């Protein structure tokens, strides 16, 4: 069996009486896309925050490449190799596309505590940033102000920033959100190739994209994983059809 790159073990998180995560155990293996689906309020965002930092679980562990990262800060987890994209683009809108990509390269491969030499003239950082922009097809937009990008291009830039980290695992929170059919298809093709670089834990509502991309799917309902398996397995799982797809078993 392939060793998992990213694992959660019995993650549990409550907010008052609401149990947002109930003993969630998942794994992400090298070379795969593992999709996490579930209706609104299922606890997907809470789970992502426990994996990437920002929320400490009440119980359970998050393991990256065999190392327990449960109690590390968000920046420390990023430096260990977790590349995250956000559901709502989190970008420096006043800066150029290149500056946003440079930021990623800087965090993972440079030091932000240099005060004099221009960041854009650091050849290594610039090469990493431009390589990531090239991969997502934004290289011609490098000098454009980020606020002037279309929604789809901002999603691509999110992915480019994650790429600059050369992560061990990607955690992508609804990368297709707000994209039209064409944008969604383009990004689907791109993510399909990206799994070779690092496995992807994909939280997504676009079921066409999920079924096209996922090697495995986990279904989260009311904070609980009710099924994990291949696309066909999930499509035919009676519990999933009842709880998630709204069909009678």
């Amino acid at each position: 069996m392939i060793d998992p790159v990213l694992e959660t073990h019995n993650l549990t998180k409550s907010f008052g009486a609401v149990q947002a995560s109930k003993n969630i155990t998942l794994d992400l293996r090298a070379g795969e896309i593992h999709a996490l689906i579930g209706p609104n309020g299922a606890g997907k965002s809470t789970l992502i925050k426990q994996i990437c930092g920002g929320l400490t679980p009440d119980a359970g562990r998050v393991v990256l490449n065999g190392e327990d990262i449960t109690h590390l800060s968000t920046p420390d987890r990023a430096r260990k190799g977790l590349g995250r994209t956000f559901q709502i683009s989190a970008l420096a809108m006043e800066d150029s596309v290149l500056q946003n990509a440079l930021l990623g390269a800087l965090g993972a491969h440079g030091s932000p505590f240099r005060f004099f030499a221009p960041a854009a003239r650091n050849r290594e950082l610039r090469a990493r940033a431009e390589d990531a922009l090239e991969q997502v097809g934004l290289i011609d937009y490098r000098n454009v102000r980020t606020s002037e990008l279309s929604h789809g291009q901002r999603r691509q830039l999110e992915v480019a920033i994650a790429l600059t980290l050369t992560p061990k695992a990607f955690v992508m929170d609804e990368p297709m959100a707000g994209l039209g059919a064409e944008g969604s298809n383009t990004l689907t093709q791109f993510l399909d190739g990206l799994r070779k670089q690092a496995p992807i834990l994909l939280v997504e509502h676009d079921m066409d994209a999920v079924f096209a991309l996922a090697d495995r799917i986990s279904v989260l309902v009311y904070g609980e994983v009710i099924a994990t398996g291949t696309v066909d397995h999930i499509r035919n799982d009676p519990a999933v059809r009842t709880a998630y797809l709204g069909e009678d078993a």
Partner: protein
Amino acid sequence: MSRETALNAVMVMGLFLVPLWALWADEPFIITLTTKAAILALAGVGLNIALGLGGLVSLGHAAFFGLGGYAMGILASHAQSYAPIMETPFLIEGTKSMPVIWVIAIITSGLAALAIGALSLRTTGVYFIMITLAFGQMLYFFSISWPAYGGEDGLSIYVRNGFPGLNTLDPIQFYAIVFVILMAVLVFAGRLAKSPFGLALNAARQSPERVETVGITSYKLRLIAFTISGMITGLAGALFADLNRFVSPTMFSWQTSGEIMVFIIIGGVGRLFGPVVGAVLFILLEHLLGGLSDYWHVYLGVLLLLIVLFARGGLIGTLAGKEISHD
């Protein structure tokens, strides 16, 4: 050359030529006014690193301005009276040497900024504003109740401190010192904005979670920015005290913090020369309108209102437009 760079060049030329013209025209008062504008601009360049790059709305920067001023006042007053500052456990004497005073002012204000920043940067928004304001006011009331150094009346220094090879009592020579320092700090601030640190700090202002998810701790960035900012403002405070040969608790007051912030907003928040344009305009208004009315701040208020409502990038933003740097 971009329009902003051209505007910056005009400002530098103005700061260089106006005092020379005043010297030729035998108008020492204009040299002194320009010196005051340049020193306030320096304080503004300091605050602009925190405010413009870091998005840290500090209403307590007068604390660092005052600490720089009092560092000068205390050191010079002891040198003037030949009384050591302390004798045990080791001897510390006063000094009339400007470079030594600057170093001590920078260290003192930097340490204070580090301590104040370490506590206040754990909060954001209005709480950050209030905590920085509270620290500034604490120092203000402390200086009022410290009779050894003049208390409410302040502290006079009879002879301006010395700089090797220059007669600092000559207005143009003192201005030359201030001008060189201002230019050096502007070069530093300009490089800082484009450096890896500036890139990360600027991004942290716009999207803190983005910065954290690429492995950078935004708290550290902000704390260092706040400290650098305090050090520059402290240096400005020492020069301001030397210009007036007088320090008083007013340097610590929240009005001083407010005035620095107001002229940065007028000039352009986050713009390298925003504080310079703002400080020059502030001094011009104070001089021209202050002669007409004691209530000249009303006109300043109207100008601020117009700029906030109709020219969000300040005067530089209005004249030069939006600009992003790529290298």
